[in-house]
């Protein structure tokens, strides 16, 4: 595995996706419908599927697992942070924080975990091929990330016709704030 510094192994891969998301977001909100449609594609590709780029890049550059996880989650979390800030015009800081736990952000995070699990498997498989089978292909992290990702996506998209989790969160809001 090549010896890379912190910036090379995680900051660069993460920044590619994060900057692309921020730039496309700025374009989205300041352009015509056609350009907004295209920039929206880039924006949501970064938010929803950015880990497909970040995880393998950081893996082959030797980033430890914690860094890989943080790098993959950073873009959806930044996007969600912007949404939480915007919601502050109508709600208290505590409510805005709670707003961060919404079905789309949960879905985005769950999606990253699923992608990380899948990518981890393929990265190890590829590494194993290169190192002639010395690497264990299926890591506990890959299994855990894939299962939690699938579970999260199920809760967001399928459970209770796709609104069950939403109503659960609303119930939680009532118990905390009302």
């Amino acid at each position, binding site marked *: 595995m090549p010896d890379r510094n912190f910036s090379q192994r995680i900051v660069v891969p993460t920044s590619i996706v994060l900057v692309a998301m921020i730039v496309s977001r700025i374009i989205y909100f300041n352009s015509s*419908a056609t350009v907004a449609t295209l920039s929206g594609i880039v924006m*949501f590709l970064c938010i929803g599927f950015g880990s497909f780029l970040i995880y393998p890049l950081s893996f082959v550059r030797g980033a430890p697992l914690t860094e890989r996880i943080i790098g993959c989650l950073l873009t959806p979390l930044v996007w969600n942070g912007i949404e939480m800030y915007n919601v502050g015009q109508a709600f208290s800081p505590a409510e805005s924080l709670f707003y961060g736990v919404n079905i789309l952000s949960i879905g985005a995070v769950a999606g990253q975990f699923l992608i990380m699990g899948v990518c981890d498997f393929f990265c190890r498989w590829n590494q194993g091929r290169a190192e002639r089978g010395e690497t264990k292909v299926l890591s506990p992290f890959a299994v855990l990330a894939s299962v939690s990702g699938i579970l999260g996506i199920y809760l967001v998209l399928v459970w209770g016709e796709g609104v069950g989790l939403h109503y659960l969160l609303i119930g939680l809001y009532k118990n905390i704030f009302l």
Partner: protein
Amino acid sequence: MRSTDRRKGTTRKAALRILGTVSILSIVLPFRLIPCEASFPPSERPNIVFVLSDNQNYKFMSCAGHPFLETPNMDRLAREGVLFTNAFVTTSLCSPSRASFLTGKYAHTHGVQNNFTPWDGSHRTFLEVLQEAGYDTAFIGKWHMPGSLPNLKGVDPFITFTIQGGQGRYLNCPLIVNGEERPSRKPYITEELTDYAIEFIERKRDAPFCLYLSHKAVHHRWTPPAHLADIYADKKPPFPEGFDPWIPVTRGHLFEGTNQGFASQLYRNYCRTIVALDEQLGRLLDRLDALGMADNTLVVFAGDNGFFWGEHKLFGTGRWPYDDSIRVPFIVRYPGTIPDVGRRADQMVLNIDVAPTFLEVADVPVPQGMEGASFLPILRSASASGREAFLYEYFKDFPYRIPPTQGVRTDKYMYIEYEGRRKPELYDMRNDPQQEQNLMHTAEGRASAAELKKTLESLKSGRGGTHAGS
């Protein structure tokens, strides 16, 4: 009950009076399509059928000019009655609006200000008043008021659902029938509720009846019945200029449960569920015909609030103080009362006007405290004056990113004030019905706003604006 007693005590004189009335009506009725200002009061108190749809944008009926949606039964009602083209809700959100329909009061009065503040049962509904006056009453369908399901006074049966936060679901939705949970009898909720409604109107009774039928449709997730699943597949949704497919998941549109699938597919399913609703409305109207009740039944079809399909780059349930949100479908059929059926009435009517109108047609005094006013005069005469202004109000409702709002709508202007950072807005509704040019940036607009602000303050203090028609 009252009508039963009256029949029991029919005297010879009364019988002659009825015979005379019937003879006169048999001469007059053939000419009732001729426009005139005369009214033809029914000989008995009328039945009342109120059908409420959910989240139906006012433009989504073929009689409202939708480019491809076909709603023959809503059209039929409009053809046989009056289509109100300026019908509004005073709070564009499900629970407050429903409470306003039921009580004839603004949200700041009845207290159901958003989808969290509970219905406390302290405000009388028109159903309760009508039942006390001898009506047989039923509440069938979506209740969706915050708080636990009440033992709703003044109705029998009370049929509703509580799953999914009270929103129900389109397929196999369990119902609560007079407090007891029952499995669905029909798989599709719109048909199921209509079945219960038809069973109610078919009951043998001496008293008139009032049916409140509030559908789950057309709230998301817009699941159409199987036989409508493919209609409009080749139709292109007429999204507004500037619409992009990401609008449903940007700008805080996070929680509608509608962010699955492409906007055009969601739009078509919305239309399909409206067609399903229209079919069931047709079943109900046909049953009224078959039972010989149509001529003595007031039918009102309305929506609880609007829905954005990209207008103002917004998506979802109303809330915002723009027309696609606060304006609702509103059709009234009342045989024998409307001299010029098929009319389009442009007078402003509100959800809070429904309760006092029902009480007036039932010849029941309107209780003090109801803030709406009967629109019966507008049904009777096209030249009746409408209200001049009304108060729009919206209260904080987590997690939706809309600041608390108060506004005044006149036939010319919409003036809006928000709590927090958002600046006031003013729109000229005659020249800019799409509300695209905020006149607060102009000197003329600011001058008009000063007057409107006074009207707003007056409405807020409850000193005007409740006049519906005269």
